[in-house]
């Protein structure tokens, strides 16, 4: 069942005419540590329910937490990569509320003493400009379990006869990264939201602290949004849209909430401060739990844990482990590869940066790597509606094979159109490029006499075109080359054909 909504919306243009959006993004990232935040249980995704639990993460009476030092290291590295200050001394706090999938009925989190604070992230936008997103804080906490509602048709609690809880996820380390309210983004707010989450995902991937798979929930985004009537600086009431779990949805959710808020404010209504649920299928949000200032988590310092107090030496040592920032790396690669701005942007937008990088590293030319990945492979991935790296993994096409394909061309065995056929064979699962070329009998004709004969025939048969070339219209040779290639059934080197034609027709 997809959610229906009766919420009115106004058009995006109307929103922008009358309001400025104010946006805050909260991103939860599951760290890729081998063990949980406060116990030694494994964190493998998709394991048998309740197979990765112990007295600590089940919240059994008497059990006590112990901080996972690796998780703290990851948190500090994330903080540093986000240009944050790292707390010299900070504590965990208990966030108290009752919920069946939360074993202790409090979440061990951080409250007013986050491990990292006051940072920023430079975000590249589609038009090539950058936008600085100010980071308020990044703090450590533990994930909850997962409820499974059984008996209803929707998998939701409504209509279910009973619920099961899987505590495998309970206690998995999370980092929550909170932006400052982003103002003045105007019509670009949805794009900035998406670009920020994408940039954050790339950064976390580069840090190797999380697998950042939004579809598996290892990276989740909450969108806080409110509107300010233009010309005022009175902050509006915000809504908090939970678990927006793809880049595209982040953009759509921001846009939808802007249009929904706009309709309420236009009608003289008041926006309710509440949690909203995002529906991927219908592209709308629906009302969740109403929030109020009376929501009181009764935070207090976690007495079962000692403070986290990383020494300055530790922090500096961790700073030394940071990878090159993605934005800086992209600039370096662009100049190394000699790509034009537009080419580079296309590569990034198509999600090809890593694949091209690996392919160049494996021995291909940057131009060749870009040509093959962004050509047929990207086209097929697009048709299958998956990203290129997923498509590549599913169809066994690797950077090494692209290198092999290119070398078949540069060695003179294949021409471009033959190489394209070979690639199709590889993508169809026929084997490596060489195997495909062999199996399909693709091989440029090396015997020059056959080519020469074909050239002579074509010149004789197209006397008028040949004359144009003789008169100095060299570009007319293209038509002759095409005829020659046709006569040779494509099994000839077009460059060589051109050479021969020009030798015969020009002084």
């Amino acid at each position, binding site marked *: 069942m997809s959610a229906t909504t009766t919420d009115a919306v106004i058009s995006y243009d109307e929103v922008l005419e009358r309001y400025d959006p104010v946006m805050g993004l909260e991103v939860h990232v599951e760290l890729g540590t081998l063990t949980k935040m406060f116990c030694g249980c494994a964190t493998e995704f998709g394991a048998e329910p309740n197979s990765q639990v112990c007295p600590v993460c089940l*919240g059994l009476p008497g059990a006590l937490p112990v901080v996972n030092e690796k998780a703290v290291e990851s948190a500090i590295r994330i903080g540093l990569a986000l240009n944050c200050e790292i707390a010299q001394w900070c504590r965990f706090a208990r966030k*108290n509320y009752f919920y069946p999938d939360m074993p202790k*009925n409090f979440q061990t989190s951080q409250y007013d003493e986050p491990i990292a604070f006051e940072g920023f992230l430079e975000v590249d936008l589609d038009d090539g400009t950058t936008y600085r997103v100010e980071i308020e804080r990044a703090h450590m906490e533990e994930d909850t379990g997962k409820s499974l509602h059984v008996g209803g048709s929707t998998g939701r609690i409504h209509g279910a006869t009973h619920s099961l809880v899987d505590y495998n996820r309970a206690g998995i380390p999370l980092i929550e990264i909170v932006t400052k309210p982003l103002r003045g983004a105007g019509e670009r707010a949805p794009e900035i939201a998406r670009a920020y989450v994408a940039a954050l995902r790339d950064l976390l991937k580069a840090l190797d602290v999380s697998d950042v798979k939004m579809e598996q929930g290892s990276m989740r985004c909450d969108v806080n949004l409110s509107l300010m009537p233009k010309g005022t600086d009175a902050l509006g009431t915000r809504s908090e849209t939970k678990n927006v779990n793809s880049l595209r949805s982040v953009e759509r959710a921001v846009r939808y909430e802007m249009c929904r808020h706009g309709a309420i404010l236009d009608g003289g209504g008041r926006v309710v401060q509440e949690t909203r649920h995002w529906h991927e299928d219908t592209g709308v949000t629906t009302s969740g739990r109403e929030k109020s200032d009376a929501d009181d988590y*009764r*935070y*207090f310092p976690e007495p079962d*844990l*000692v403070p986290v107090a990383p020494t300055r030496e530790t922090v500096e040592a961790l700073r030394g482990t940071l990878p090159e920032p993605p934005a800086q790396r992209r600039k370096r690669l662009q100049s190394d590869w000699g790509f034009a701005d537009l080419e580079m942007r296309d590569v990034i937008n198509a999600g090809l940066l890593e694949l091209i990088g690996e392919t160049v590293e494996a021995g291909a030319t940057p131009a060749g790597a870009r040509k093959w990945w962004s050509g047929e492979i990207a086209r097929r991935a697009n048709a299958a509606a998956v990203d290129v790296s997923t498509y590549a993994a599913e169809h066994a096409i690797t950077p090494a094979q692209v290198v092999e394909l290119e070398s078949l061309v540069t060695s003179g065995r294949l021409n471009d159109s033959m190489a394209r056929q070979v690639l199709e064979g590889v993508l169809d699962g026929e084997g490596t490029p060489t195997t495909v070329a062999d199996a399909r009998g693709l091989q440029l004709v090396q015997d020059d006499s056959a080519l020469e004969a074909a050239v002579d025939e074509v010149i004789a048969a197209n006397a008028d075109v040949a004359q144009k070339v003789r008169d100095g219209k060299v570009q007319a040779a293209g038509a002759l080359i095409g005829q020659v290639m046709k006569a040779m059934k494509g099994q000839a080197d077009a460059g060589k054909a051109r050479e021969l034609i020009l030798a015969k027709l020009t002084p």
Partner: protein
Amino acid sequence: MTTDLTRASAADLADLLSRGETSSVEVTTALLDRTEAVDGDVHAYLHVDRDGALASARDVDERRGRGEDLHRLAGIPIAVKDVMATKGLPTTCGSKILEGWIPPYDATVVSRLKHAGMPILGKTNMDEFAMGSSTEHSAYGPTRNPWDLDRIPGGSGGGSSAVVASFQAPLAIGTDTGGSIRQPAAVTGTVGTKPTYGGVSRYGLVALASSLDQAGPCTRTVLDAALLHEVIGGHDPMDSTSIDAPVPAVVEAARRADVSGMRIGIVRELTGEGFQPGVRARFDESVQHLVDAGAEVVEVSCPSFTAALAAYYLILPSEASSNLAKFDAMRFGLRVLPEGVDDPSAEQVMAATRDAGFGDEVKRRIILGTYALSSGYYDAYYGSAQKVRRLIADDFTRAFETADVLVSPTAPTTAFRFGDKLDDPMAMYLNDIATIPANLAGVPGMSVPSGLADEDGLPAGFQILAPAAKDERLYAVGAALEQRLLSSWGGPLLDRAPELSTAGTTTKGA
């Protein structure tokens, strides 16, 4: 052999066992038989594990027979307060909400006892979730003081003190959040130590107030307490607040019993009004004994102690309100369905279970703590209490500049009668006025018997407090005092306790 195995100290039993003059099975059987005879009246145990204790006693005897190198206390049985998780043994914390819960794991203290080869006799009674000073708040009925079955055995660990005082076990594990080891020791004429916070692992101790709780020994002699302290103490990587340092040399200090040149500080704020005359008289006598043993007496003032009770009753309920949230019927323990609700939600089941499963005192403190932590009140209550806590720690620091240990009566009065303070929480709370400061500051404390109060003939306790991580000083002072008192009494104080009826009935003794 003429030794009464039930009355022997752990140290003496250890000698008998190592000389082969008795066996662990013999000792364990004698104690279990004693329990069968007297515990119907005393009700120190919530659960007795005869089979388990005898099996582990047999095991130790066999290993001894094979000439294995055993721990000094191997084969010596022990009782464990029902707040410690024991794998395969019920653990209720004196609450209905945990009725029937069998933990799948052992508390670190318990696994250390097992590792030492000490048979676990059973689980002792306590005020529900350790909230109380009388065991009257146990959901399973109170424990009776072996000195007078109409009186309280102290609390919350009344079961552990009574089990030792009634010769059902030479040793017991207690826990002390505001005096729950020391006050029961005082009113039953036994010895109890609250080690330095972090000195004994809290892993598996069902938390009342995490920043205050500490497990420790309940025994009849100071040396026994030291021997047990050594078994259970020391660093545990499963408890982040555990101190990563060797256990202080408590056994050596208890054996040397040397206080010569030691400065004994009498805390002015803990000896004034509100203390029963007989308790006060025994205290003064004890101080004189220490002076006779070569100690020097100084008077110290700890002005912030007067605010300790108030701070304690904000910090404890705050932490407890959160610690007790996990008792929600979802994963373990009691589950109660709300009446008249056809299709109850998880939240409704939680509420119904907590309503039925928790007693009044527990609810009182959960409500107090929930209130104290609420936004808008946090700074005024929890925040201020934490400030007081720091001031109390500062008072201790200053006092320990002029004194090596501090002393006071352990509790203001001897054991009161059941029901006397049940309807007056404030009067009940005042019992812990002298013991609470140590928990707030994390310093170690001990109660040793100082004699019987003249007006009622009931035991009084002498409290010793030492700086953090200097637990050995408690044992030096406690042992020196014990030595002199024993010779002045001509034998253990507990020899003067009335004989319990051994009819094995549940009728009250005379």
